[in-house]
């Protein structure tokens, strides 16, 4: 029963990457683990000596850690939100993408949230946010929405792995101890399928507003203060758009890597990159619109405090970061994604990498310049991150890749049953597409002609 010849095409292609591990994988994992260990040492060093080992001071009380927090939470919108939207709109091409996207969310949201904990002066009192909560603080809203989002995302990642766990339970006897419990007794009956699909659909509906709320309240941490260029009513939607922007870019990069690394060229086709590239193009334009709206209103408002912050970005000490962000997020992606000839796998990956660099710089140029230019008093202090902050940032990125790599050894990075379901459902999908059209046979008049049309 369990002979390799009996495996389906999907199983033959998707199970080996889980079981077989190349030497390159181990080398990469070891390198990343070394970076993570170094970052852990840096954290220990900081815990011993206090936040004095960072480059922060007055007035720049927040630095790399909070920038990374906002950036990572933004990238986390890749998975759950995009996957939920694609599922809800019944986009058939989503099938090989959803799981690869969802794990980004789970890994990155945990790492993003840890950045706030690293940033605390008193990590030992972290649970005061539970025992002594102060509900008017946007930071507490963050705690609530991020923990909800993390819990929901884990569930939303787990549900579609149940049938795959059952497949792996049957195909890999040596890992039965793991996949047996995870598959929750899945046998693939009609009732189970119906229940699972309903559960996934319900979760998808729930996750969309939660995801939107997460980056909205992250932006409100800034917008609810009265500081120049933070106190902006556009910040909620502006941050959500930026989050989805960097999120889609992260999916594209991850897809390109697993495509090569796990030899999944047959599943992740140029078409998928093309479609995601189009989505990314829409986000490029939306992001540009929001950014333009934010800066043009500040410029016309001409409030001296806001103009001081704005000019420090346009021409002042933050200009190199600001204009690099603009180049990475506007003209380059616009050309690559807008011209069909460039919207290839290589093209979309280059655009995506630049977008992620640009979006990190955007977070940086939102957090730091406002702090550097308070209303009073004026300071001549410039923020330069210390080795501790740089190490912890490198550690966060390394940990993210490591967790992602580890996940590919736990589950097929492309959902086996969902691809099979798509294959079996081709007929059904064709019927659904047909139902979008007016009724009647091809080439015939579609029923009686409406009265309004006959007048003309």
């Amino acid at each position, binding site marked *: 029963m369990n002979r390799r010849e009996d495996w389906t095409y999907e199983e033959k292609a998707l199970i080996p990457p889980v079981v077989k591990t190349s030497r390159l994988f181990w080398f990469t994992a070891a390198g990343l683990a070394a970076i993570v260990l170094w970052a852990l040492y840096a954290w220990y060093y900081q815990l011993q000596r206090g936040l004095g080992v960072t480059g*922060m001071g007055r007035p720049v009380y927040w630095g790399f850690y909070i920038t990374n927090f906002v950036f990572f939470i933004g990238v986390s919108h890749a998975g759950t939100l995009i996957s939920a939207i694609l599922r809800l709109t019944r986009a058939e091409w989503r099938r090989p993408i959803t799981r690869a996207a969802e794990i980004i969310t789970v890994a990155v949201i945990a790492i993003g949230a840890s950045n706030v904990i690293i940033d605390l002066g008193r990590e030992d009192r972290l649970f005061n946010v539970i025992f002594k909560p102060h509900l008017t603080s946007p930071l507490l809203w963050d705690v609530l929405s991020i923990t909800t989002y993390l819990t929901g995302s884990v569930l939303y990642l787990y549900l579609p792995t149940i049938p795959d766990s059952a497949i792996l339970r049957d195909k890999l006897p040596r890992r039965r101890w793991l996949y047996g419990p995870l598959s929750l007794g899945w046998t693939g009956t009609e009732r189970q399928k119906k229940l699972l699909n309903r559960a996934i659909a319900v979760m998808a509906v729930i996750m969309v507003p939660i995801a939107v709320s997460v980056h909205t309240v992250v932006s409100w941490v800034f917008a609810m203060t009265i500081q120049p260029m933070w106190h902006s009513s556009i910040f909620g939607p502006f941050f959500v758009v930026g989050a989805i922007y960097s999120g889609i870019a992260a999916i594209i990069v991850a897809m390109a890597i697993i495509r090569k690394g796990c030899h999944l060229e047959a599943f992740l086709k140029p078409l998928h990159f093309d479609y995601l590239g189009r989505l990314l193009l829409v986000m490029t334009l939306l992001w540009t619109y929001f950014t333009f709206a934010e800066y043009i209103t500040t410029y016309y408002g001409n409030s001296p405090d806001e103009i001081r912050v704005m000019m420090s970005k346009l021409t002042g000490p933050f200009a190199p970061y600001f204009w690099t962000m603009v180049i990475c997020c506007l003209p380059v992606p616009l050309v690559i994604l807008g011209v069909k000839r460039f919207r290839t796998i290589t093209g979309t990956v280059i655009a995506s990498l630049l977008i992620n660099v640009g979006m990190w710089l955007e977070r940086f140029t939102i957090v730091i310049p406002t702090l550097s230019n308070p*209303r009073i008093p004026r300071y001549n202090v410039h923020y330069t991150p210390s080795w501790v902050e740089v190490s912890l940032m490198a550690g966060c990125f390394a940990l993210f890749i490591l967790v992602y790599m580890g996940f590919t050894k736990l589950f097929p990075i492309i959902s086996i049953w969902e691809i099979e379901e798509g294959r079996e459902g081709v007929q059904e999908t064709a019927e659904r597409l047909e139902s979008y059209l007016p009724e009647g046979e091809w080439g015939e008049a579609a029923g009686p002609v409406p009265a309004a049309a006959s007048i003309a």
Partner: protein
Amino acid sequence: MPRYGMVIDLDRCTACQACVVACKVENNVPFTDPEAAAKGRTMLWIELLADIEGSFPSLRASLKPRPCLMCDDPPCTKVCPVNATYQNPDGIVAQIYPRCIGCRYCTNACPYGVKLFNWRKPEWPKPMAEGLDPDVSVRPKGVVEKCTFCHQRLQAARERAAWERRPMREEDYQPACAEVCPPNAISFGDLDDEKSEVHRLSRHDRAFRLLAELGTKPKVYFLREVGK
């Protein structure tokens, strides 16, 4: 309940910084070495704000001593996730050091740059470490601190008045900066008490508040300089 407030007459102020020194000693405010100071980690609960208008050679500098402004509608208290900074019944914006998680949200929300963070464990040079004020707790590393209007003095004054079975008088409670000011530029008392000096001065023609347009309603007033 009294509404404690302060009026600083900039026409009297000589910018001698006696208030700065008195505050530092009174409240066990930690010292910073030059290296830390360059990173912007100087700890001063009351400091001299320098406003420089124009550019050389036609410039005009004005200096204002700035304690915590004790806003009636403080932007810092509402953003604290754990209620470690709050407005107490005396109207004083207080800090609970053992509860603060050190997120520094309040330091970023304050438009006056009043709040300070303990980047390291506080240290004092040898002889000074033996002369710390026993009435004021030394803050641990990783928490936010700020001017409290010398709250310990209010507590002591209340206790003394209760012991002597009499109501509190204005001179019973004066913060260190107001007490020490050589030209008597700093007045302190109950803003709601119509007989008090601060009540009268806060309604003076020259009275103004820092960034009053932000709606924070500070309880510290300044009296404009009359001119040279």
